[in-house]
């Protein structure tokens, strides 16, 4: 289907002797935010890493904009237009904020307008531009990780639990930042999130994972409205929208 930006069909991933992904079928429609929910250990991070090529899928197909990417090496996948913000943020602590951003700007130079826009979204980065990234607070590191991912326009952002360990105020700021990022309609986000409120406010589509498989996929609005389904899938409920 041509309005699917990313699709996974029957993807299996083995790590050593462990069979983590057991036939994942997932589609990420173009535009907006697709949220990937699930308990710890369900395989969400493994899915992200498999898409990114950090782990090789042992079976199945992954298509990005129609193009099969399951056998490509990670750098090529990144250059095809996918950016990855891992769970541990992956920022280079010994490098300055500026150096982190310079690395992310593949051409070697910044698109100044875009950089300004990002720095407006995350002013802390501007303030600590010359400081080693290791000195930033957790929330600021997360912002740097996201800023790095979007300094060059990418079609798909894979973001893994950005709100983990962050204060509610910062989570709110991140949520707004994401909204702005996808506002232009050119960027799609696949978001793994445990924070259900954030997930609900951002997500248009949702997929739920359990034991290495997708057990539910559909519109976020439908899931939000169905308390029983929430209980069954997640064991707890989404907060009612105020």
């Amino acid at each position, binding site marked *: 289907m041509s309005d699917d930006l990313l699709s996974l069909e029957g993807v299996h991933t083995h790590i050593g002797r462990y069979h983590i992904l057991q036939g994942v079928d997932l589609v990420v429609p173009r535009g907006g935010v697709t949220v990937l929910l699930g308990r710890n250990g369900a395989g969400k991070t493994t899915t992200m890493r498999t898409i*990114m090529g*950090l782990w090789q899928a042992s079976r199945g197909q992954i298509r990005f904009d129609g193009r099969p990417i399951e056998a490509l*090496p*990670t*750098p090529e996948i*990144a*250059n095809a237009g996918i*950016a*990855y913000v*891992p769970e*541990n943020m*992956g*920022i*280079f*602590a*010994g*490098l300055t904020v500026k*150096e982190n951003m*310079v*690395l*992310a700007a*593949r051409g*070697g130079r910044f698109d100044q307008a875009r950089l300004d826009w990002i720095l*407006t*979204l*995350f*002013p*802390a980065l501007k*303030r*600590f531009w010359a*400081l080693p990234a*290791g*000195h*930033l*607070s957790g*929330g*600021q590191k997360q*912002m740097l990780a996201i800023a*790095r991912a979007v300094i060059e326009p990418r079609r798909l952002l894979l973001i893994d639990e950005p709100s983990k360990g962050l204060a509610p*105020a*910062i989570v*709110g*700021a991140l949520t*707004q*930042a994401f909204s*702005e990022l996808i506002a232009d309609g050119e960027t799609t986000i696949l978001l793994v999130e445990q924070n259900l409120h954030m997930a609900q406010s951002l997500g248009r589509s949702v997929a739920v994972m359990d034991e290495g498989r997708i057990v539910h996929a559909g519109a976020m609005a439908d899931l939000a409205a169905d308390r029983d389904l929430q209980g069954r899938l997640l064991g707890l409920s989404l907060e009612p929208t105020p």
Partner: protein
Amino acid sequence: MSVANNAGADQAAALPGPGARERLGRAAPYLAVPLLAAVALVAILAQGSSLPTWVTLTVAGLAMGVMLFIMASGLTLVFGLMDVLNFGHGAFITVGAYVGVTVLLWLGPAFAADNVWLNLLAIVPAIAAAMAVAGLGGWFFERSVVAPVYGAHLKQILVTMGALIVTEQLLLAIWGPERIPINRPEALSGAFLVGDAAIERYRVYATVLGLAIFGGMVYVLRRTRVGLLVRAGVENGEMVQAMGYRVRVLFAGVFIVGSALAALGGVMWALYDEVITVHIGQNLMIMVFIVVIIGGLGSVEGCLVGALLVGLMTNYTGFLTPTLSLGSTILLMVVVLMWRPQGLIAVNKGH
């Protein structure tokens, strides 16, 4: 409209930066070098010898130290960046020494002449040849020996050791088992006299060259894009790949440069010792390992500090208590590891 104001507000007061304590912590390793020199001075004077002796030993130690640094820097970067432990690194030292000496002997007249410029006419090609051969060997080595065993430390140690043996045997087959002497030309021999102290000329030149190379490496690492990639890769190679860079190519490049540097160290050492055997790489590897462990795997600055400490220690104890020379260097390593288990200047691994 700024959306992250709340987040930044609490930080508005002060820039988070290194406190005094952290700054001292970062400077401490560098201070260890003059500290060691000072302790040695006291020991030497107490033993009845004079200041000039200390001066000579210190210069010798520094020269040895920078040569060890040149040989070890490649190993530490390769390990920091690629998590590859190359037990065969010594092979490049030996190959460099042999190729360099062979070229020098071919260019005999220019090398033996009493004119510095003629000498350089021989030395520069010798170094270039040694580094080229080692670089080529490094490329071949990385592709065929190392690449298949990425991530398997045990196998890495084994195959690289095996490669060391094979290389030594090949050198023996080509050059034979006899030691090959090489005499330093006049321009590089002799000593400067500073007061009562005789300071060997070659050692001074070697030290200057070594520090220049260190400076060059630091420049490349801190001010160029390639250096940025290497530094980022040492911290988190996966993330660099996820940002679209072909880290494998970077690895190969660093490996080749590291091997070439080892060869340079080999040539310098050959001129220092004035004789070479097929075992010099193997023998020096022990010192190189100690340097790399003390300095911290992956840190070029740490490598220099470690190398200077080892060089100085070896020379001081070689004079004061010769039997315990290698033992004291090991003791130094133990003391450093007790203080900082990751080495003097640790690289924080993001993953």
